[in-house]
């Protein structure tokens, strides 16, 4: 059973979070995330949701509050964007190390300077090494479903890591879409109450956040990596469990879109995926062998699934809205590293597209595919990252 509403993406997230019965929510405003915590505040003010709502003085404290509440056994949530996510960085690394399973919505937005409120993925990508699980969504519906899965993934006793659901600012948070909502009983059956084995309890006092020296620190970090590895399988299981309830299948760690027999495969994540799917459909109708891989789970990085999906393709074009200055795009780097040394590996081209909200429209996607086809036909690799849609009039 479910019912459909036409709602803003932010409201879809707030409704998903509400359905997960959070006990502690911390909130600090930053665009374009603010509508989510505003909706949650309204729900509490109207008596629709019972939760402690902590109005903090910074994103640093937003993440710190839910670290404390999570350690004290309360299901905890916050949301942020851009500079706010960066301000949380230190807290997130520590919370990973202390295995605190809260959920954050990372509403994607560019980083200063220049200051901008427009979307790109530089903020969440900057947190890729933290050990926070990162799930990216294409639509408001996927944002709703992924948030419900996120708490179950985070709290899994074999994982116990924070989960960040990354959704594109404005394009998803502020647009109205049809969203199919789950019944509360369905969510309750899917997501039991948070009952951690270890928590701050005066009846069983434990010491948390110890100092570790060279004799144990590596083992702590290795344990996080083991949990990340375990998470890959569990995330797929949790997604498919949810699909059985909702009937909606957004894919597993990745979604394969028309990859069968494709010679050129694009890789993308976030809201640009929808446009790429349209472009792929048009190109396919013209006989071009083009497909798409949508990355849903970026950390842990699903390289086995991607490698399997691109098997047989000649060229892979990674489209990404982030850049590691002095090197290349993060997703391209990940993929190339995993492909290195593989026989018959496709050539990978890194396309930097959509920084600071620069439009990734079908024309630009066709241009990307045309470049990929040039490489396909010539067999000559294109190793330099390709910045898509730069304005030559203002490039220095």
């Amino acid at each position, binding site marked *: 059973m479910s019912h459909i509403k036409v709602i803003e993406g932010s409201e879809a997230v707030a409704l998903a979070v509400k359905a997960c019965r959070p*006990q*502690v929510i*911390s909130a600090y405003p930053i665009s374009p995330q603010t509508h989510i915590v505003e909706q949650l505040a309204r729900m509490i003010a109207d008596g629709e949701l019972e*939760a*402690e709502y*902590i*109005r*903090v*003085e*910074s994103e*640093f*404290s937003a993440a*710190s*509050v*839910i*670290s*404390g*509440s*999570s*350690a*004290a*056994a*309360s299901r*905890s949530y916050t949301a942020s964007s851009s500079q706010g996510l960066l301000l949380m960085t*230190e*807290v997130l690394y*520590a*919370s990973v190390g*202390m295995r605190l399973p809260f959920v954050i919505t990372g509403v994607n937005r560019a980083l200063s300077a220049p200051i901008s409120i427009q979307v790109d993925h530089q903020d969440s990508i900057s947190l890729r090494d933290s050990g926070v699980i990162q799930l990216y969504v294409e639509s408001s519906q996927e944002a709703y479903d992924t948030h419900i899965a996120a708490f179950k993934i985070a709290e899994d006793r074999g994982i116990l890591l924070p989960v960040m659901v990354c959704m594109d600012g404005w394009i998803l948070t502020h647009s109205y879409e049809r969203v199919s909502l789950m019944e509360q009983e369905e969510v309750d059956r899917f997501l039991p109450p948070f009952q951690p084995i270890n928590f*701050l*309890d*005066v009846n*069983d*006092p*434990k*010491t*948390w*956040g*110890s*100092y*570790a*020296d060279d004799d*144990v620190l590596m083992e702590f970090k290795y344990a996080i990596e083991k949990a990340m590895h375990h998470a890959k399988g569990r995330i797929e299981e949790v997604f498919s469990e949810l699909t059985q309830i909702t009937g909606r299948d957004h894919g597993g760690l990745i979604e394969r879109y028309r990859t069968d027999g494709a010679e050129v495969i694009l890789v993308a994540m976030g809201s640009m995926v929808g446009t790429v799917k349209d472009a792929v459909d048009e190109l396919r109708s013209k006989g071009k062998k083009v497909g798409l891989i949508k990355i849903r789970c970026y950390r842990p990085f699903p390289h086995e699934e991607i490698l399997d999906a691109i098997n047989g393709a000649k060229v892979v074009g990674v489209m990404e809205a982030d850049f590691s200055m002095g090197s290349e795009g993060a997703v391209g780097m990940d993929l190339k590293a995993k492909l290195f040394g593989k026989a018959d590996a496709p050539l990978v081209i890194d396309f930097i597209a959509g920084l600071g909200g620069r439009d990734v429209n079908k024309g630009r996607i066709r241009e990307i595919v045309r470049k990929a086809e040039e490489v396909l036909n010539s067999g000559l690799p294109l190793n330099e990252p390709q910045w898509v849609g730069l304005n030559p009039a203002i490039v220095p």
Partner: protein
Amino acid sequence: MSIPQTAREEALFVSGHRACHGCGMALAVRHILKATGKNVIVVTPTGCLETFTSPYGFSPWGVPWIHHLFENAPAVASGVAAALRAQGRHTTRVLAIAGDGSTFDIGFGAISGMLERGDDVLYICTDNGAYMNTGGQRSGATPLYAATTTHPAGRKSLGKTEMMKDLPAIVAAHGAPYVATASVAYLKDLQKKVKKAMGFHGPRYIQIDTPCASVWGFPPDRTLEVGRMGVACGLVPIFEMENGKVTGVRRIKKKTPVTDYLKAQARFRHLFAGDRGKAELAELQALADRNIEKYGLLGRSGGEE
């Protein structure tokens, strides 16, 4: 790790930790927990206390204890308090025990947020007037003219040129119902204040002067004596504030000159090299006298307690 039941019953903060000889902070913490009893969760930021009590695999804590980061103990404590409210665990209280670096400097924003929200946390600052865990660098709590490693005395310097931040006043200005200062030299007074603070709800603040033998530069068997000298000269005023008003002070029985206190510590040694520190010593004496006047530390009769 879990703490054996027997150890817990004996004390909530047991020996065997790695504090320096004569550590005022360790002494304070043991007595704080005697006053609170076992129904508290303690949040401690990065610093001496975290370092000497938590080498992985060992713990002197007989209460649940969490260390997260340097600058966020107030926010973590707020989160713990929120979780306890959400779960109806009303008999468990939250205690933050921090140092002056995290309280006066790096965590200042977070403590202001915690106070303004009115979260039910007793925040205790063990003040040793510098960043001792990293070797004694200047903090916002370092006293005027003390030498620190980042503001040393030298041919062109007589140590710290700024006043210590008046944190109790800042906390009180947030509307905290209970604010007090204490000294590790007067443990009964400290415990009385902790117990009193536990009787209030909302954010409460106690700042404890905890002399540090290693960095202040005095023999480790003189911690309490140095603490008493600070109080006796007026540089360390001991008072209580309820709802913004001073409601009690520890009167000075026999006022001593600040030079007695300063001479006992290597961090003020440069003030006594010839006549160089003469004006500064006079300024510190005036500062002590102002404290005595402001808080009425000598009382109406001008003397005994």
